[in-house]
């Protein structure tokens, strides 16, 4: 029996406003509210709401046979709560059906998994907390930003207690192997892996409405034939895509929603079921381990990190960002932490990619900037301001370790003070009540006691 595993990525960055260098030090607000609201409302209207409605309907119609998984980044959730809370409600409704799984990821949709230190773990925890508070479920499967994966990352993920993880079925990693099996991490076989079937996924995401494609038009019937035509032993087909595929990248007028709607019945005819990642992980044993010494992702033809860290501009930004991380975490300042998350979002680095000069226009299509240089200039101005703010919290000449021990001492002393004050108050109260209980002789005496 074959299972189709649908997983959708829901993510929107907080886009940055035009931040000139004269704003450095004088204006600490970095976000393009107008643009953010406009985009998230548009996407919600074209994609999130109708798609959620449809999927809910499909789950009901099939009595729970249709299943999907979502990974919604923390920054996207925040924007949804802020601008279109009805989307959060509709996700909640989906969660109630039990046929929908929410995956864990980094809160900011960041590249923190490439850094040493505990930023990655902290962010994942933060995200799981957010998912649990909104949807009442604790994620057990992990999906890293843009399906970035390497053996090392896998090891960190399993140490956080996740049973499985999703990644890309990159050709240079799989070679002759098929992505349609459960694999496991080479460094720690306890972590199971699902790999994206990029051919079948991209047929929907990129080629669905491409009339130059020899398979156009794509029907649910034909598509399920393709799934059924995979060798009998291959029993999971992983279709991972951006949620915006439905209604935004492929507009409603292309018939993408009807296509989706028709899938379950044609799947049933061919004895194909739907499953969430955690169901598959519970049910199946890994067939083999895969070796991924260098990180892979689902972006571009290279399926590596070059979309975010391909040129010097991106590397410089990434390292500057990393350099300030420890101090931000130490500051425990809420506003700083918030900006820190928003600035880490990988999209900002993606906008600086110079790859599109040579290949395709996918990068420039999503970028709010005219050129990667503009993206870099704007981001660096903001980052400079941010770094100044962080540094103003602590003297710059004290190094991190010393600072850490000092803050620890301060915190410990504060705790002690708190504890003593509490004790003091408690004693006071006791004293008061004992005084009150005792027969009062003179007011004067009582005052003295207090």
């Amino acid at each position: 029996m074959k299972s189709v595993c649908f997983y959708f990525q829901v993510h929107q960055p907080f886009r940055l406003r035009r931040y000139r260098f004269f704003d450095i030090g004088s204006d600490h607000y970095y976000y393009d509210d107008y643009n953010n609201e406009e985009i998230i409302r548009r996407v919600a209207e074209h994609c999130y709401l109708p798609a959620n409605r449809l999927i809910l309907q499909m789950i009901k119609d099939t009595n729970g046979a249709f299943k999907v998984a979502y990974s919604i980044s923390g920054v996207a959730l925040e924007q949804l709560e802020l601008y279109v809370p009805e989307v959060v409600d509709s996700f909640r409704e989906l969660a109630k059906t039990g046929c929908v799984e929410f995956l864990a990821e980094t809160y900011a949709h960041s590249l923190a998994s490439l850094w040493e230190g505990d930023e990655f773990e902290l962010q994942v925890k933060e995200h799981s907390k957010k998912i649990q508070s909104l949807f009442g479920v604790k994620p057990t499967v992990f999906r890293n930003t843009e399906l970035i994966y390497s053996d090392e990352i896998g090891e960190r993920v399993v140490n956080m207690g996740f049973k499985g993880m999703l990644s890309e079925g990159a050709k240079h990693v799989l070679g002759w192997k098929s992505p349609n099996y459960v694999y496991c991490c080479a460094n720690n076989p306890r972590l199971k892996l699902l790999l994206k079937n990029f051919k079948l996924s991209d047929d929907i995401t990129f080629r669905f409405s491409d009339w130059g494609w020899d398979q156009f038009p794509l029907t649910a019937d034909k598509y399920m034939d393709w799934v059924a035509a995979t060798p009998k032993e291959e029993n999971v087909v992983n279709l991972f895509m951006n949620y915006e595929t439905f209604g935004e990248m492929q507009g409603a007028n292309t018939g993408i929603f009807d296509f989706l709607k028709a899938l379950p019945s044609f799947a049933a005819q061919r004895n194909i079921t739907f499953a969430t990642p955690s169901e598959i992980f519970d049910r199946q044993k890994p067939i083999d381990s895969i070796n991924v010494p260098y990180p892979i992702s689902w972006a571009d033809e290279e399926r590596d990190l070059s979309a975010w860290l391909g040129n010097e501009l991106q590397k410089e930004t990434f390292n500057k960002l990393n350099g300030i991380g420890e101090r931000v975490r130490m500051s425990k300042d809420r506003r700083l932490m918030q900006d820190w998350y928003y600035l880490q979002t990988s999209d900002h680095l993606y906008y600086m990619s110079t790859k599109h000069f040579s290949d395709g226009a996918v990068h420039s299509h999503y970028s709010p900037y005219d050129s990667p240089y503009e993206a870099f200039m704007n981001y660096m101005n903001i980052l400079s301001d941010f770094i100044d703010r962080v540094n103003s919290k602590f003297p710059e000449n004290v190094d991190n370790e010393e600072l850490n021990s000092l803050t620890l001492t301060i915190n410990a002393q504060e705790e002690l003070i708190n504890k003593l004050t509490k004790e003091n108050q408690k004693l006071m109260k006791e004293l008061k009540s004992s005084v009150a209980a005792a027969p009062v002789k003179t007011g004067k005496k009582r005052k003295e006691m207090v």
Partner: protein
Amino acid sequence: MKALMFGWEFPPHILGGLGTASYGLTKGMSLQNDMDITFMLPKPWGDEDQSFLKIVSANKVPIVWKDPEWNYLNSELNGRLSTDEYYHYRDCIREDNSKIGTNGIGSVEFSGRYPNNLFEEIHNYDAVAGVVCRALDFDIIHSHDWLTYPAGIHAKHVTGKPLVIHVHATDFDRSRGNVNPAVYEIEKRGMDEADHIITVSNLTRDTVIYRYNIDPAKVTTVHNAVEPISKEIEAIQPKRGTKDKVVTFLGRITMQKGPEYFVEAAYRVLQRTNNVRFVMAGSGDMMDKMIRHAAYRNISDKFHFTGFLKGKEVYEMLKSSDVYIMPSVSEPFGISPLEAMQVGVPTIISKQSGCAEILNNAIKVDYWDIDAMADAIYSIITYPAMSDFLKTEGKDEVDEIKWEYAALKVRKVYDMVLHR
């Protein structure tokens, strides 16, 4: 294929970008084996590189029949023309040019510059073209810039050969919209008569289509390119007397080049940082105004004027710069940013420049957006990753912009016009 080209400037004696472009293009075309170019100039100096084309000196070609004495003729021709050629040309005089003032050998004097009696020179050049086109054998006529359009039209009418005109600039670029009607008339007539028009950018192409009402099918863009830098230029050592970063504007200080936006951007950058100096290199009718403007903004101590720079000095200046900026209000193409990128200087150009259409690794801003301009300058001098990246990527990019490729496109136009 044989082409007769009409031009006005040719290196090493150049006054603007036209000469550089003429040289690069013809050199690029000469790489095509069957290409044979004859290039007419009003006043060649004799030290032009003639290894890949033949230059005709308009000021030696007779337009009125005279029979000068042999020795006198030889001394007058001064080697620019052989006596045989002279007699051949003289045999081809068919028109009455006696109203034009000629010298002892029956030819006209040209200044070869842009003098006050420019229209007279254009007219005389036209008359010479009438003789030359009868004397030579060619397949196609190619006129460079408006000064030579009348000559091209004349040659076309005489021989019936197709005319291609090359628009290096229009009067709309030079005058910020206040065109000179006489110039416009010449330009418009040239465009109407031409069998095909080549423009140096899509920006210019649009001007030709919308301002001169030309059928778009008749207009093709062939972007300019840049000559690889020579060893001598490569060997030039930058002179730096200051630790401050240097931001350079290089070009004529005229309305077209937007110098005032540069001063304003400098003022904004200097409000924030102090370790930067601005240089305005070149001369022009707005120079005094700019000096006053810098003083008015109180930045004269950081804002420097060099006056007109020649040859080697240009590259000395470029090589000691950290940023090159060209805020042109309207630039048909603009080869100089490409030259700056060749020596590895990060470059900022206005979106209203033709070269912005083909450059990826330069920062593009609107000429009026002084905030964006200031921001770009600040970023390059503050973030080393940015300037390093622009340096290397910019050089790599510009090294691939070759005249050879532009020449192939021109050749395609020829073939199309000739139905080959």
